[in-house]
């Protein structure tokens, strides 16, 4: 096939084609790498966010209904109702409360002093979560999070609990202490505040006083039994798990639970309908305040803004990087236009030897496609390899440039996640091929329109 032979020869003999190939390589490679990283971010975020939640979160509003009644104070009726549903695999109650963590070993005066100094580095926002361990282990990933390696891989910071099945138990290295309950804190919270096994922490919060209709401060000391790691920085930096009844007691028995987390047998199959179904059923049973008040939400709608932001970012990055491919395709167009002018005489010679205008057109179209094929092949290899080795690349770059490129403290994860999806790679390569083909059409058509005699006379 002389068209393939000639187009390849023209490609390799004109080094300027390298610019087109390189442009497409960079565009395709960058698109694959960045989109893989963004997809990784999205997937990892979904996994992490879901892991620390569950499939569905039921959060009844504690407001009076029209008839003056409230939802039940106990979680048991809600749990019982949910566990009756054949779609539900497990459910657990959470008592979730916000407060402040004060550094260890302070007496009441010192704690008060610290509280008056909001700039003090030893104050930290803390999110207390009271759990029922058995139900929690069936519903969420807390048990896995207790066993997970510390950030930074093996040897990373971690205070393992003595017994993952009973993390709030007194560690063997410590004596029974009737005054302080044991809690499990987020790995990063422990690291930032130099906590250790047995460390004494003071938790401060405010609780509503049901008699005087005002908030009352409450503080209590706990001991650290160990750490957990969810992988989501926000949680690992603030969450403190403890026994639900212990927390309820700390809150002066004002609340028994704030949420019920639900795990479904097949979330993907139910995700579209579960919110509305459960809202209706639980509202009818008087277990939530209202059936249209967002008291029942899937984990995706619960953290929808975070996931939506990442998805938006991915789409935006895709659009911006697709422009590189378009510019590269335009470069191929410019190179081909130049080649058509340069090769006018060749076109005349080829016609004299028996080539048709269509053949001439296909020769120049093929040069464009060689550019695209080489660029896409190299770009795919570089993009996929770059995405798979992005952590090593980032570390090398950070060391070489002495600049921290990916701050592991800032993001949700301690590594750069990248997921290479074959469909995305195929779509990127197909897009680059189509764009180059379209941009090559005009020069190819121009070449085919040259009159052979004019072309032969070209200098």
């Amino acid at each position, binding site marked *: *096939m*002389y*068209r393939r*032979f*000639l187009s390849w*020869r*023209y490609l390799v*003999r004109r080094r300027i084609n390298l610019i087109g190939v390189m442009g497409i390589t960079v565009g395709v490679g960058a698109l694959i790498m960045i989109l893989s990283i963004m997809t990784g971010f999205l997937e990892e975020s979904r996994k992490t966010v879901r892991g620390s939640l569950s499939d569905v979160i039921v959060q009844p509003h504690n407001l009076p209904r029209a008839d003056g009644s409230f939802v039940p104070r106990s979680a048991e009726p809600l749990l019982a109702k949910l566990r009756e549903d054949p779609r539900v695999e497990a459910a657990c109650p959470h008592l979730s409360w916000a407060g402040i963590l004060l550094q260890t070993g302070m007496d009441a005066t010192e704690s008060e002093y610290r509280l008056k100094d909001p700039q003090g580095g030893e104050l930290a926002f803390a999110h207390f979560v009271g759990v029922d361990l058995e139900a929690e282990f069936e519903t969420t990933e807390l048990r896995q999070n207790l066993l997970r390696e510390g950030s930074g891989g093996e040897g990373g910071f971690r205070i393992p609990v003595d017994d993952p099945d009973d993390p709030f138990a007194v560690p063997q290295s410590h004596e029974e202490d009737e005054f302080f309950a044991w809690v499990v804190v987020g790995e990063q919270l422990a690291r930032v505040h130099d906590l250790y096994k047995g460390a004494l922490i003071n938790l401060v919060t405010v609780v509503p006083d049901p008699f005087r209709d005002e908030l009352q401060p409450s503080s209590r000391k706990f001991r650290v039994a160990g750490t957990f790691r969810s992988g989501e920085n926000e949680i690992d930096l603030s969450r403190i798990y403890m026994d639900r009844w212990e927390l309820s007691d700390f809150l002066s028995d004002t609340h028994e639970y704030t949420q019920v987390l639900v795990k479904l047998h097949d979330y993907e199959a139910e995700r579209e309908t579960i919110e509305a179904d459960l809202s209706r059923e639980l509202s009818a049973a008087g277990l939530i305040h209202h059936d249209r008040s967002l008291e029942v939400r899937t984990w995706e709608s619960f953290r929808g803004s975070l996931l939506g932001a990442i998805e938006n970012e991915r789409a935006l990055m895709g659009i911006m990087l697709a422009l590189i491919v378009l510019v590269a395709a335009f470069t191929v167009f410019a190179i081909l236009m130049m080649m058509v002018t340069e090769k006018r*005489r*060749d076109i*005349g*010679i*080829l*016609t*004299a*030897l*028996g*080539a*048709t*205008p*269509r*053949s001439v057109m296909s020769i120049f179209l093929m040069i464009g496609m060689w550019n695209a094929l080489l660029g896409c092949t190299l770009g795919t290899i570089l993009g996929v390899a770059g995405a798979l080795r992005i952590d090593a690349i980032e570390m090398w770059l950070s060391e070489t440039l002495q600049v921290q490129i990916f701050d592991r403290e800032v993001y949700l994860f301690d590594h750069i996640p990248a997921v290479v999806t074959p469909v995305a790679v195929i779509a990127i390569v197909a897009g680059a091929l189509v764009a180059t083909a379209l941009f090559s059409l005009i020069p190819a058509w121009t070449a085919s329109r040259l009159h*052979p*005699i004019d072309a*032969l006379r070209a200098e």
Partner: protein
Amino acid sequence: MTTRTSFDPASEPVLRADEVRKSFQVGDREIEVLHGARLELRAREHLCLMGASGAGKSTFLHVLGLLEAPTEGEVHLLGKRAWSLPMAERAALRNRHIGFVFQAYHLLPDLSALENVTLPARIAHSYGTVPFDKAAHTAEAVDMLERFGLGERIHHRPNQLSGGERQRVAIARALILRPEILIADEPTGNLDTGTGERVLEILFDETQRREASLLLVTHDERLAQRCDRVLVMVDGQIEADSEVMIPQ
């Protein structure tokens, strides 16, 4: 695509032009360059076409070589009405049955001498008129180039060859498919006398050897003396009494 079953070279000319007219639009004016030119090229004949500059020789040659469409008239190539055929069929006919030798050689600068010579065979393969047997075509091209004194230069690119060498490569390229007709437009116009003489020797010997017909355009009367017939073109027409039979 280009079968010649109904064509008899003994009784019919291999190439015939009937009342060929060709006009060009120059601004608002239409200028007629060929005013009903006629020509017959018989099998194995060496025909010379002479004429002053601007007489229309090149335009006539382009029409005969199926590179430029006539405004009126027809060209019969091996009995086929060439300008009435679809473009692809006409291109295949040109590829398979006409060889061109140009004054400016017109070799593809990115191909070696050998690749230039085998290029028409590659094109013919795309039409299915000739099976492309790379080894056979390469062997024939190498053989031809060696006979033309270019055995050491087959892998050289045109810019590494002298003018005479380039023209010999162009002759080999024109003959690789053993065409019935060879059209040569001032083949020695860019060469010195000695080199031109060597090129002409090859041109005449090879066309004779391959029993091809030669249509030669030249200003050189000594060159015309070597042809079987000479036609003179004046103002876009073949002079009625210009046909001169050259005794061999």
